[in-house]
């Protein structure tokens, strides 16, 4: 047991830096994918067929591509196009591009959960498009969107570990550093697991709470 705690205390800076980078990566990619995903989601529910089709194409391509491939393309392929991005930025872009497709789907299906009658009634009352959107559709759609959106971000937090395979020092990269230091890997991995559980479990609890609370309200 003493050995188990020693692994953490002796390598505290490595763990601290690793998890700090993980959280940073997560926050940047979360904001990025929220922006890109909302844009794509707006495209998918727009009245313009060309926008809808290109949004759907993006989603279908990305959703059937492994995230590791997106990473590999950005890290090994893109420099050959004379575009140089450093590893951390590549990881942010890969996570953003990939997660945006899922954010887009959450937004699309969230908007679709609102009954057509709601908007029809609002229009019958003479509301403008902006009023229908902000007063009727979005308040209802957001409720349906928040729980699945949180699942998407929880999954993305777990996906940040993939950056470890592409030269980013984050939590997933700790084992490869530790194998040089000869630390017992089981303990090393157990600490990483604990770290992730600390980050993820509150999010999961909040997500379940919101899901339960808002399902009743509907």
């Amino acid at each position, binding site marked *: 047991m003493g050995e188990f705690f020693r692994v953490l205390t002796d390598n505290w800076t490595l763990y601290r830096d690793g998890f700090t980078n993980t959280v940073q990566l997560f926050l940047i990619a979360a904001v990025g994918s929220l922006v890109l995903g909302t844009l794509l989601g707006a495209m998918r529910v727009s009245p313009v067929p060309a926008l809808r089709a290109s949004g759907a194409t993006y989603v279908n391509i990305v*959703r059937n591509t492994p995230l590791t*491939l997106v990473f590999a393309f950005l890290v090994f392929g893109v420099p050959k196009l004379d575009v140089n991005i450093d590893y951390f930025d590549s990881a942010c872009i890969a996570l953003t591009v990939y997660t945006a497709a899922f954010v887009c789907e959450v937004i699309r299906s969230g*908007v679709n959960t609102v009954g057509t009658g709601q908007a029809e009634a609002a229009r019958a009352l003479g509301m403008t498009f902006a009023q229908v959107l902000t007063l009727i559709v979005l308040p209802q759609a957001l409720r349906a969107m928040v729980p699945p959106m949180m699942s998407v971000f929880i999954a993305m937090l777990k996906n940040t570990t*993939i950056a470890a395979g592409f030269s980013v020092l984050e939590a*997933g990269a700790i084992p490869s550093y530790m194998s040089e230091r000869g630390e017992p890997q089981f303990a090393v991995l157990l600490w990483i697991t604990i770290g992730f559980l600390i980050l993820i479990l509150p999010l999961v609890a909040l997500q379940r709470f919101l899901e339960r609370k808002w399902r009743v309200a509907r």
Partner: protein
Amino acid sequence: MSQASVLYDLPGPKARRRNAILGVASIVGIVALLAYVGWKFYETGQFEARKWEQFQYAAVQRELLAGLWATLKAAGIAAVLALLFGAIFASARLSDRWVLRAPATFVVELFRAIPLLILIFFGYYVPLQYGWAIDKLWALVIGLMLYNGSVLAEIFRAGINAVPYGQTEGAYAIGLRKNQVLRLILLPQAFRSMLPAIVSQLVVLLKDTALGFIITYPELLFVGKQIGGRLAFGLPYVPTYLIVGAIYIAICGLLSIFAWWLQRRLGRIPRTAGEVLPAQDAGEDAGRMI
């Protein structure tokens, strides 16, 4: 989306004109973006014959096929094991005895919260350190089994719970036992409603085999890195990843279409009392699909 959109009224002449203008403008924008990417590829010589010629060689094609086979092998073994794992833990979670229910719940919740790559690392780094001879294939397969098995356990449980309670009551009322109720009444109905969700979870599993790249399991992506890194052909990373990506998209896309088709087909036949769990609808459980 065409008629019953919640956001818009049926477009009148003015809105139709505006939509047409927006449509043309967006097509121009998208084509311009694609053209820029294409030009960038051309400018940096990605379309040179030298970068593509090795794909004509039978040896390189065999390499790609070997990688594809390794991917499919890992996915196949992991899928079977994950389905077994899921069935066992779902039945434990549905049990009336808390001795079975509590540990199963713990295991399922735990493995869903740990990043898959960390699970795979348990099977990779620990044996590596102690010099145990464990195949990388099994490190990958065990990680995939634990994670996807836990997710599948939840899908199974949700499927069984989605069968209306009246079915269970009715079955008990005609004198069936617990085992018979599950086997004869709930499972046949639940299975149909779960099928699309199961298939799309298997797509996720197939995609996740690409994590084998990180532990240097020689699957498709790993083979792609080797082919792309050949200096004699001008480091053709971009062409290789385009080909590898196309293979992944083709396989996963076909499976996704199958799941979608199943969902539509099963939704049409009203012979199951349970509602069909969506295969691809992110609104339902998007975290599962990533």
